[in-house]
């Protein structure tokens, strides 16, 4: 990786040697990139092909890169070995979607107050908001648990979803940074037209911020999709499990019963299925992801 240090800008220099060194560099660059890409993709490739194997193909030296025969039915069998369809429903509709809506809405409103209105103490409070990112989850874990128990929210998604409606510091930060890049003139013109702050937020700022809001929404959705610790603590009833808990349950089943055939292939099959939507979201939304982050322009 160290070979890449000089890469970004060493393109057009030394006019005479430029063509040769440029080509050499270009070649080297692609070699490095391809080697790196392979090492980044390898775990996913291995996850995928392992999902197609049976036990005898898993524990083999040297490893089998392309299983023959390939057991495509593992995907189906693994999926139905636990109620994963139910977990998928829970993950998406009970957790990820409400969480995403809450996060985007609240973070945008709060970010507006932290960026588009000048008021005394704003920056101090904003710093405090950022500082809460430093509070280790473990510090608040048990007291929070007690609070939600008082509310009677245990074994529901409320402890996971409701806090999102109060904004999330990281996303507040991202949106604030984005809102700051929108010229103040736009707001000033609206004030003259008699608009109030709420009008400006919903009619002007939010429509201008679609890329940033989309990124926040995607990140929020993925956070909820991936969450393990939150559901682990609050969700007890197996009918309310999310996908990550389902994977852990599958893993626990194998641990407790070593005779179950295809432990690894099943685990890998379910892992592949769970990763797949993220692949799809990312590949279709990649442009928005990247543009959103670049436009958010964290500085």
């Amino acid at each position, binding site marked *: *990786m160290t070979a*890449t*240090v000089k890469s*970004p*800008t060493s393109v057009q*220099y030394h006019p005479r040697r430029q063509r040769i060194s440029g080509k050499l560099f270009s070649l080297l660059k692609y070699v490095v*990139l391809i080697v*790196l890409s392979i090492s*980044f993709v390898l*775990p996913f490739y*291995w*996850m995928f092909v392992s999902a197609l194997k049976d036990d005898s193909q898993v524990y083999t030296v*040297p*490893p089998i890169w392309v299983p023959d025969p390939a057991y495509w039915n593992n995907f189906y069998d693994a999926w139905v070995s636990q109620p994963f369809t139910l977990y998928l429903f829970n993950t998406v509709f009970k957790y990820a979607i409400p969480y995403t809506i809450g996060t985007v809405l*609240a973070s945008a*409103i*709060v970010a507006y*107050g*932290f960026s588009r*209105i000048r*008021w*005394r*103490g704003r920056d101090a*409070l904003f710093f*405090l*908001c950022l500082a*809460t990112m*430093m509070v*280790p*989850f*473990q*510090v*608040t*874990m*048990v*007291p*929070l648990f007690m609070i939600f128990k008082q509310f009677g929210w245990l074994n529901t998604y409320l402890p996971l979803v409701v806090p999102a409606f*109060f904004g999330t510091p990281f996303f507040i930060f991202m949106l604030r940074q984005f809102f700051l890049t929108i010229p103040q003139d736009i707001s000033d013109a609206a004030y003259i037209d008699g608009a109030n*702050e709420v009008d400006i937020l919903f009619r002007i700022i939010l429509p201008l911020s679609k890329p940033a809001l989309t990124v926040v929404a995607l990140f929020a959705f*993925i956070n909820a*999709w*991936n969450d*393990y*610790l939150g559901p682990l603590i609050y969700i007890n009833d197996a009918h309310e499990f999310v*996908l*990550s808990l389902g*994977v*852990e349950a599958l893993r626990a089943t194998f641990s407790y019963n070593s005779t179950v055939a295809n432990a*690894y292939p099943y685990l*890998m099959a379910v892992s592949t299925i*769970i*990763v797949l939507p*993220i692949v799809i979201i*990312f*590949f279709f939304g*990649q442009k928005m992801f990247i543009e959103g982050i*670049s436009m958010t*322009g*964290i*500085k």
Partner: protein
Amino acid sequence: MATAQPGTKSGMTRSERRRLIQGLLFISPWLIGFLLFTIYPLASSLYYSFTRYDLLRDPVFIGMRNYTSLVTTDSMFWVVIYNTLFYVLLAAPAGVVSAFLMAALLNTKLMGRPFFRAVFFFPAIIPTIVTAVVWQFLLNVQFGLFNSILQGLQLPTIPFLSNPAYAKPSLVMIYIWAQGNAIVIFLAALQDVPRQLYEAAEVDGARAWHKFRHITIPLTTPVILFNLIMGFIYAFQEFTLPWLLTGGGPANATEFYTIYLYRNAFQFLRMGKASALAWILFIIIVVFTAVLFKTSARWVFYNTETE
């Protein structure tokens, strides 16, 4: 809260006061959430940290005993401090450097950039539980892919996760693998560096390294600071991956601060002590971040004219 000081109120104009109220209204969701979901739990756990509390019986106030016993008699405390600092100080900078280099590589003239970018970004957004099962399967000393390859070549295996000396570096390797967020953020910052600056430098005859050193790096220092801070905060709080992958072993090599904290709270029934641990960690992170900010004045370059 500094805004509510009565003395300053009289010094405010009407429009200042209106803006203050409006500002507070807009941030009120966060403010309420902050009081309810952060301040109150923080205060409770601060209280618990001065008690002997096993979760099951009522807390008993014992003063500073949890703190003093951690520092003086708890044989694991310094082990987990060492492990955590080792990991954090290795992982966070290594993550920033590797992410920066990969972003720089992606920022060159490139065919298939979206593809490479996607490949590098992707590991950051998959569920940790998947990361854990997949890497366990890759790194296992007997059946892991890497060691199967070595065995196939008649070479001795590498006990990535089962040797105390290799366990932390192996986790750092996975950490670096999952630095996609930082890569994308760096890439965005690199693309923001104005082309003219490079062109002007080339006219002056600057070499590639000089352009990198004197244009690219200074203009991206705010983002480097951002990623560094996020990296440190994340690494300090890293829990799920080592918990699922190594469970603190082998020989306590990956017994990180948060794992020990969790163990104290939920396995040893020492919630008071765990709360003390949590507060110490909180203070460590705050001090760390503050120091980084302080030093950043010296090396972070804020270009106020680019807007």
